[in-house]
């Protein structure tokens, strides 16, 4: 009984805190996702995969074009 009462009277702040945290994580993830430095590092990995034959030419090109789209059209903040 006391536990349930306690739960019901919890302030909203922790919930907001969780949402805030989730937003921070998402923002950071997005930042990383669109970071030109990371995108370029990933492009180098694609180039490696192309050299070693790990991926086909078509697969590499598709991946690269996807990365280029990301590079050239980051979300406007």
């Amino acid at each position: 009984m006391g536990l349930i009462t306690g739960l019901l009277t919890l302030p909203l702040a922790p919930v907001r805190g969780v949402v805030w945290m989730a937003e921070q994580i998402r923002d950071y993830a997005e930042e990383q996702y669109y970071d030109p430095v990371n995108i370029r590092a990933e492009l180098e990995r694609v180039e490696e995969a192309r050299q070693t034959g790990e991926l086909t030419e078509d697969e590499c090109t598709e991946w690269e074009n996807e990365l280029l789209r990301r590079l050239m059209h980051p979300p406007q903040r």
Partner: protein
Amino acid sequence: MTMTAQREGGGGGQVERYTGGGSSGLAEVIELILDKGLVIDVFVRVSLVGIEILTIDARIVVASVDTFLRFAEATNRLDLYGKGKGGKDLTELTQGMMEGGAKGKTSGVLEGAVEKVDDMLNRGRERREPEEEPAPRRRPRPRRREDDE
């Protein structure tokens, strides 16, 4: 065309050569034509046909915790001998190399130094690191026997 496509570095030098374009990789191309080259006012004033102008900010990359952890891990994975003469010699020779002037003399000193390190490590170089080390990704490596102190 005087300089044609890739050729092996003569005399064992470790220099890869590319004439640009697809051969050197897209990342290379991007570094040239997105970051550099002429940008002039007219491209703003003239109406562009629905094409966005890109601004790729120059990123100042500061060594971060991720970088430290990555290098710590690489250092841990090494097979090392105790700090011995060999290591010192290379550092001293490197110093000498920096201060030395003549090209020929320098090459000789360093080639000697590299041979020394090779002897010391006494394993053929079975594996070269790939040219572009992918940043944070870990490579599974065979665990090597640890040397005694």
